[in-house]
């Protein structure tokens, strides 16, 4: 990667971060802070940017890992059904109005749902001493359909007043971000990120196929288990921080592969950072274009992501033959 490209990335990231913090939707001059603007900056904008970055990082990095271990360019972290489990359990609380842990209820429920579904997917994907990519994929798809159907059932029989908030959460809601959740989210996401970085070589080898990975000295099943754990941790934490954000996990690794190549040692961290930046940007767009109404970030990422993805799809050198 050339120095010019790196400089462009750093510049873009700085612009996105500064705009999110100081310019939009209302200008705050960081050199002349009064009590109120300081409060807005520290308790509203900063945590929101951090949550967006963490979520995007988790999704981008786990998307890159997942496309590698499933050897499938169309995989994203939600294909494992993690999002559907999280939505269902969060929706159960939101629709019934149960808040047994106060403001931690929804994140906790989402994390619990996501983790349970990861275990279930792992259970179905496990055979003869290890995970098999096709089984994981199919188990994820099967479970997603089931949980999605139950979620739709719940939505269709619920009284109207809770539905709006539930839908808002499902489409990725960063508006509730505050400092209280960041330590937990950061803990899970950063540990998942560190595991994934430490497995990057193994991931490269797994992309070549199980037999070559074995010949290169990797224990195939153990490596797949570790990668699966790191993906589950990051995705579950990301969903519990702010709901479902589509397209980052699918799209960002492809964009990054185009720029930095397919070597997981570079691609995984690059997708993490790129994912974080893209979600910050999406959040910024979502809260400014029709201010004061906010568009959920999940919708923004899908609206700007899908056309770009389709454009990439037309380019042979990005997605393969």
């Amino acid at each position, binding site marked *: 990667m050339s120095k010019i490209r790196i400089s462009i990335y750093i510049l873009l990231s700085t612009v996105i971060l500064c705009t999110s913090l100081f310019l939009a939707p209302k200008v705050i001059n960081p050199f002349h802070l009064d009590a109120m603007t300081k409060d807005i900056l520290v308790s509203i904008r900063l945590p929101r940017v951090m949550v967006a970055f963490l979520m995007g990082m988790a999704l981008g990095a786990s998307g890159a890992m997942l496309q590698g271990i499933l*050897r499938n360019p169309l995989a994203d972290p939600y294909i494992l059904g993690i999002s559907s489990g999280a939505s269902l359990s969060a929706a159960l609380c939101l629709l019934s109005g149960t808040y047994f842990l106060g403001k931690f209820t929804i994140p906790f429920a989402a994390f619990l749902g996501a983790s349970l579904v990861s275990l279930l997917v792992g259970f179905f994907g496990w055979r003869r001493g290890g995970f098999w990519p096709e089984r994981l994929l199919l188990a994820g798809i099967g479970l997603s359909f089931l949980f999605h159907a139950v979620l739709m059932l719940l939505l269709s029989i619920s009284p109207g007043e809770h539905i709006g908030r539930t839908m808002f959460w499902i489409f990725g809601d960063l508006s509730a971000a505050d400092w209280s959740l960041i330590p937990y989210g950061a803990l899970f996401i950063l540990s998942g990120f560190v595991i994934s970085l430490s497995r990057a*070589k193994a991931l*490269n*080898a797994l*992309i*070549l*196929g*199980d*037999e*070559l990975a*074995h*010949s*290169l*000295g*990797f*224990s195939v099943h153990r490596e797949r288990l570790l990668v699966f754990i790191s993906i589950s941790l990051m995705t579950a934490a990301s969903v519990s921080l702010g709901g479902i954000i589509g397209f980052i996990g699918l799209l960002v690794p492809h964009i990054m*592969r185009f720029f930095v*190549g*397919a*070597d997981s040692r570079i691609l995984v961290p690059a997708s993490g950072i790129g994912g974080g930046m893209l979600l910050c940007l999406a959040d910024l767009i979502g809260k400014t274009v029709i201010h004061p109404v906010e568009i959920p970030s999940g919708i923004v990422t899908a609206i700007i992501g899908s056309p770009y993805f389709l454009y990439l799809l037309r380019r042979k*050198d990005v997605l*393969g*033959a």
Partner: protein
Amino acid sequence: MFSAPDRPILEFQRVVFTYQRDEGFIHDLTFSVANGEFIGLLGANGSGKSTILKLASGILKPSHGFIKLWGKPLHSYKNKDKAKLLCYLPQLLDVNVPFTVRELVSMGIYPYDILPEMTVAESLEAVGLTEKSESYMRNLSGGERRRAFIAMTLLQGAGLVLLDEPLANLDIKYQIEILRLLRELKAKKNISIIMALHDINMAMQFEKVMLIKDGKILGFENTERMLTSDMLMEAFDVAIDIKSSQAGSTYISYKNDISPCCPLQRRGKGSER
């Protein structure tokens, strides 16, 4: 006439292997490979060549019997340590790997914490891919792709190299080049090579040949004794003549008429197996 067998690098002792759904089988296989041997593993389709290589590489575990690498049970090695002693190149290679040639070949050094003797540039040179080192694997031809994988395997620098049909789909030039390269490596570093193949002419280039049929060893001796009409008839169910040219090289010819006007006759012969 061949170097006296050193300490065996690989030993199979009464190895039996059955696939779960009985797809293939290896019966009571016993043999050993000495350091520095260059062995052709020859047999018809489905005779068990690939299974033997997978057993030797530790990808498959024997149902019964023992496999030893340098005198120690194969499965007692840590994967990373084993990868420094033994490397395996499967027959089926993914056509859609997302890496560039250089990225792929560099993976050969993964088992090491320091660079092995042979550098990435040297191994690219050896397979004639220096100019394509920055190309994407998926943009290469089938033969070039295979050469890149061979370069990766060579870079791994293990003392025992197991290659499953590495010469399939290669131009004759590269078949010869790669055989020459392997021989050079063998001469320089005394590595042992076991290569599955089913081209009998190519098998003549090896010092020793192991003939396999239905998961059993028909014979494992030096090439002249193995590649006789009788042995080949038994292994392949085809009548084959071994001839010598005036220049001194040997080649095979088919006794059956396989003239192009009657291809069905040839097919009919094959289907009897």
